[in-house]
Every structure is written in C-alpha cells, then in structure tokens.
C-alpha cells in the first residue's frame, strides 16, 4: 500500500508539512474547485460528518469560506463566535472545546488570538483540528489558497520570486507563506520597516527594508495588512509615511515582472499598504484568492475527514 498523500490527522501549520503533502492539498483543491461552477453546488462527500467552526477572533472571509466549503461537501456544521458563546462568561478554551467534543464532532476549525492554540486543542481533544489562524503563528489555509492562486496563474511555484511586504512581525499569513513557498522551491524576500520585522526571521528568508528592492523582478507581491493600532504602538510614525515608504503604488508595481501578480489576504487598508489603483488594477488576483479559499478548504476538509465518495 502506498502512503496516503496527506498523512496528517490535523492541519496545525505549514511548517510540519512536506512538499508532497502541500501538492496533494493543491491537487485536491483543483479537482474540487470544479464543483463550485456547477449549477447545483453540492456533493455528498462528507455526508454525516460534523464540523464545528470555533472562532475566537473576528473573521469575515475565513469563516464564510469554511462554512461554504462545509456546505458544498454536505458536512453538518455549526459556527460559534466569541460574542455569542459562553466564552464571555469566562469559560476556558479547553472547557469550551471539551463541551463541544461531547457532542462528537469530527473536526474543530479553530481561530484564536493565542499562538499555539490549535496545538493545544490537538493535544487535548479527539477531533481533527484545523488551524484557521493562531495568533502570530500560522494561517495554513491562507498560504494554501495563495499557493493555489499562484500555481493557477503561473503554472508552477518552483523558481518564482515572491515579495512579502508589510507587518511581518504580527503576521501569521507571512509565516505560513514563507514556509510553504520555501518548501515548494520559490524564492521569498520579506520587506517591512525594521520595527515590524520579527527578530531572527532572516534564518527563514532574506529580508530588506526597501520595498523597491523587494518588488524588483518579482513574479508575485503579497501585501500584508497594516493595523492602525501599530502606529500608536510606536512601530512607525504616521500612516502617510508608511504609505510613502512601504506602500505598494503603481509606480512600484512597474519594478516587478510584467506579468506580476498582486495578492492581499484582506481586509485591505486602501491608501496605506496598497493603493486603490493597484488593488483594483489588472495585476490584482485578490478576488481569485477568495474563490480559491473555498476550494482549498474543501480539500482540507476532504483529506482530513477522509471523504468516502469521490466528488
């Protein structure tokens, strides 16, 4: 018997995955994506499986994306957000998860502000755990959907030059993408003001403080969200200066390859990290990312829950 294409019980991060596991998810997503174009967008692959989406942080895109993926694959799902759950009453993460587990779900999709929260649940729960973003650690399905988008447009990941620009310090998206792209043979360069560059990140990928250097000759540019509160935290003086020094403008896009792709995990701050003309311009694949997000999450659900019937 050959080894399964995706041999893990959970998806906690990209770091522990091998290139072949990543390819398996992307190939599965590619195959399942077609379902989304059908008039009746539903296959019975996960009928009888229960998935709980446990979201401790606000999220529009990721949560909706998981919910749609679950519905398309016919899984039974429910979503719990902090504002409506007993978390407000001071229940611990473990108690909440244990209570949910008593209802025998097959999977818990967790979004949490604490790095390692998904590992914590995986250690103490029976369900398969999917990390939908943990603190500043990882956001594996985001990196997978970014990779799917790049692969569709470029036909490959290997050898691509990818610039990741913005608040790398606080970004789980950046970390997951660095792991994934590096494992797949792409060349990543990170760009941020020194205050938003995490110490020691250069052990994972080359860095620069000059955006022009980062985007020059790039096949793809991934922009990261800048949160307003970073300004008051003393990371940089003003949003105006941030945009002037580190923002992606049309002028800077011209330094990249002619067929460059612009990605952003959302939500965007127009006029801060990215100019509107770029976000809405011809190189932007930001909305493709959203569509691919559903396909990638379908693939993850399918692979982890061992869908019985082919789609």
């Amino acid at each position, binding site marked *: 018997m050959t080894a399964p294409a995706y041999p893990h019980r959970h998806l906690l991060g990209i*770091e522990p995955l091998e290139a072949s596991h990543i390819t398996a998810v992307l190939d599965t997503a590619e195959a399942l994506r077609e379902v989304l174009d059908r008039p009746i967008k539903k296959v019975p692959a996960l009928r009888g499986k229960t998935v709980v989406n446990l979201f401790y942080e606000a999220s529009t895109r990721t949560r909706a994306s998981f919910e749609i993926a679950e519905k398309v694959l016919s899984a039974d799902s429910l979503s719990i957000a902090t504002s409506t759950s007993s978390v407000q009453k001071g229940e611990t993460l473990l108690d909440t998860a244990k209570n949910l587990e008593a209802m025998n779900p097959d999977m818990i999709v967790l979004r949490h502000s*604490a*790095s390692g929260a998904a590992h*914590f649940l995986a250690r103490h729960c029976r369900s398969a755990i999917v990390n939908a973003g943990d603190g500043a650690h990882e956001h594996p399905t985001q990196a997978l959907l970014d990779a799917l988008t790049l692969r569709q447009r470029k036909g490959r990941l290997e050898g691509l030059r990818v610039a990741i620009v913005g608040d790398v310090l606080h970004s789980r998206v950046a970390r997951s993408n660095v792991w994934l792209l590096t494992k797949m043979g792409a060349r990543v360069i990170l760009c941020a003001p020194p205050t938003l560059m995490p110490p*020691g*990140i250069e052990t994972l990928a080359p860095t620069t403080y000059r955006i022009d250097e980062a985007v020059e000759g790039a096949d793809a540019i991934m922009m990261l969200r800048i949160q307003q509160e970073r300004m008051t935290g003393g990371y940089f003086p003003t949003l105006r200066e941030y945009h002037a020094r580190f923002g992606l403008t049309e002028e800077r896009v011209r330094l990249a390859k002619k067929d460059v792709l612009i990605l952003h995990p959302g939500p965007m701050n127009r006029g801060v990290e990215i100019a509107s003309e770029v976000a809405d311009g011809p190189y932007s694949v930001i909305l493709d990312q959203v569509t691919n997000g559903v396909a990638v999450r379908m693939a993850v659900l399918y692979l982890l829950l061992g869908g019985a019937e082919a789609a």
Partner: protein
Amino acid sequence: MTDRLLLKGGRVIDPGRSLDADLDLLLVDGEVAELDTRVAARGAEVIDVSGLVVCPGFIDLHTHLRQPGREDKETIATGTRAAAAGGFTAVCAMPNTEPVNDQAGITRAILEAEYGDLREAGCVAVSDDGRPMASARMMRRALEYAKAFDLTVIDHCEEPTLAQGASMNEGPVATMLGLRGAPGAGEAIMVERDVLLAELTGGKLHIAHASTAASVDAVRRGKARGVRVTAEATPHHLLLTDELVRTSEYDTSTKMNPPLRAEEDRQALIQGLRDGAVDCIATDHAPHTVDDKKVEYDAAAFGIVGLETAVALCLDRLVAAGLISLGRLIELLSTRPAAILGLPGGTLAPGAPADVTVLDLSRRHKVDPARFLSKSRNTPFGGWTLKGAPALTIVGGRVAWGHGR
C-alpha cells in the same frame, strides 16, 4: 537523651575545607561532632553509607513555597518535603507570596507555620523576585539600607517595558512560533545597572536566575572590579534552550521567567560555573496548579518545579557529562550558597549544623512527576533518565528523607 547519628564508610567531600576522603561522620545534638577515618558508634544510630558521597547539606537560594496565599500550589510542608527529597537541607523562600512577605509579621507567620524538618531562622535577604524593580533610585536605596543589617539584595533582573507581554525568549524560535519574546538584553540591562549601583553603594547584590551570556559577563566584570556581586543559575537554564518550546509544541512546562534562552547563553552559563562568574545553582522552584498550566501558552503561568530534579540533573548532565567536577557541584549547591547569605551551613567542620546531603552517584532513575512530593507537577524533565541522585537528607542531625525509607 542525646541525638547521635553515625554515617559510616562514605566518601566525604567538603569543598570549603578541600576535603575528599573516606571518613565516618558523627552527628550529635544537631551538630557535626566528629569526622575521622574510623569513629566508634558509642550508642549512635549507624547508617552504612559506603559507596555513597557525603557532603554538607544543599541550600537552595531560590524557592517559591507559595504559602501564604496559594496553598493550592504548594505549602511550606509540601515544599520542604520536596526539598528534602531533592537533597536540600535548607531553602530560601522568595517573598512574592500573597500577601507579599515584606513585613516582619508575615515572615513570623510563615515561620510559625510548620517549618518542621527544615529549619531556617529569620529573613536572610531581601528580594524583588517576580516583581522587578523599575526604579534605579529604589534599588539604590535597597542596596544602601540593607548594608546596615548585612542583608543581601536578591535581584530579579528584568527591564519591565522590554519584557511586556512576552511569554518566551526573543529570537528566531519565538518568531517561528509567533510568540512575543523578551530580549536577553532586557535582563542584562538590569544586571549592568544593579552591578553599578552595588559598586556605588557598597551593597551586597545577588543576581537571581541569570540566564544570558551578557548577564554572566556583567557579573564577571563586576567581580573583577571588586563589586560585591554574586549570581545563581538554574538547572533549566543550564540544560535547556528556547528550542524546546518549539520541539515540545508549545508545552507550557517550558514557560518560565526568565525564559529558556539560546544555546550561546546556555554555554555562557556553563562557562560561568567553571570560571566562578556564576557562584551557585538555585532551582527557582515555582509550583503551579494544572489549571494554571493547562491553557494556551500565552495564558499559562510562568515557572517550573525544580527541587526534586535539580540535584539529579546536575549530577548526570553536568558532572557525569564532564562539564564540572563533583567537588565544584557541591560547592555550587552548598558551600557558596551558605557563604553568599552568611548561613551557618555549607560545611562539615566540627560544630557546624548537622545538615548533610548524601548522594548515590550510581543510581539510575527516570523522572516521574507523578511521584513528586511537591504539590505541583509542572516540569519539562518528566521521563528523563538520569544517573546519580540524592540518597539521604539529614537536617539538624535527623533523617528528613531517605531513598526507599
């Protein structure tokens, strides 16, 4: 009736007197009475310690007993029993209890509780442990005022604004894990500051749980200038690095303050043990309940228990590993801690307190937290196989703990 205990046939090591020989040791009425090649029993209880190492009782300068306030984590009774089981005959209880032990009344209340087997009379030092002193002026005053009573200031060195929100060491590992890190510089800044203040005031400064290369260097330079400064290191900082947070996948028993540092820091601490920049080994025994640890990494309490693992870890990973001699280890655990705080122990000279630790260098065992006498189990060393362990702990001439007893 007199209390007489004869330890027969052991290898006696007393580094303070450059002694390493096979001798009998007679303890009478809580004091060392006689140490000779052959001592007659004369009615004393005799314990055969042939094949074992007999040394002055180990003293832990850094223990959190949690009483009063958090008796769910530890009490003086359980903490001192754990200490005895770990080969310690005395512990220095840190004052960050609830309420904080900064008044004689509270000290007395703590002491009036069942201090029992391990006797420790009076406060021997003042400390800001767990609540670093941000104000240089306050630290200056503490060092100055303490001089009048010959008290040592035990200093938890941590620049609070740099460590804010941190749950591990700053560096590549924290970056990979997405955890906020405290830079080593935040510790060294305070060590440098307080060494300078000790120099200014002539006060006696003891650096608690030094964890970085720069801290060790600051102490070393201070000593070379004649500053009255000493430093301790913990077994976990000597043996583990922040890499363990990653390989253990956010196991909260790797979370403590100061945090596990980088390999070059660990190496510098070991070098400090060898050249004297680091004076002693202390446990920073910090018991916590399961509830305080079985949570997300960011939310978990800082600290690990250490009393019942420290000696065995040091025997196996420092002495057997050839990094320091057995004599040096005994100095680090007994002679020096006693000297730093001016405690009466730390020697087996006749007339010294009959506090004795007996070691079995050949006993192999596996660290099993379920069998700890401490109330708490929070250790990253569970499952480690170690060679060498305490065999017998004698406090005030009486057996406080013995392996298999």
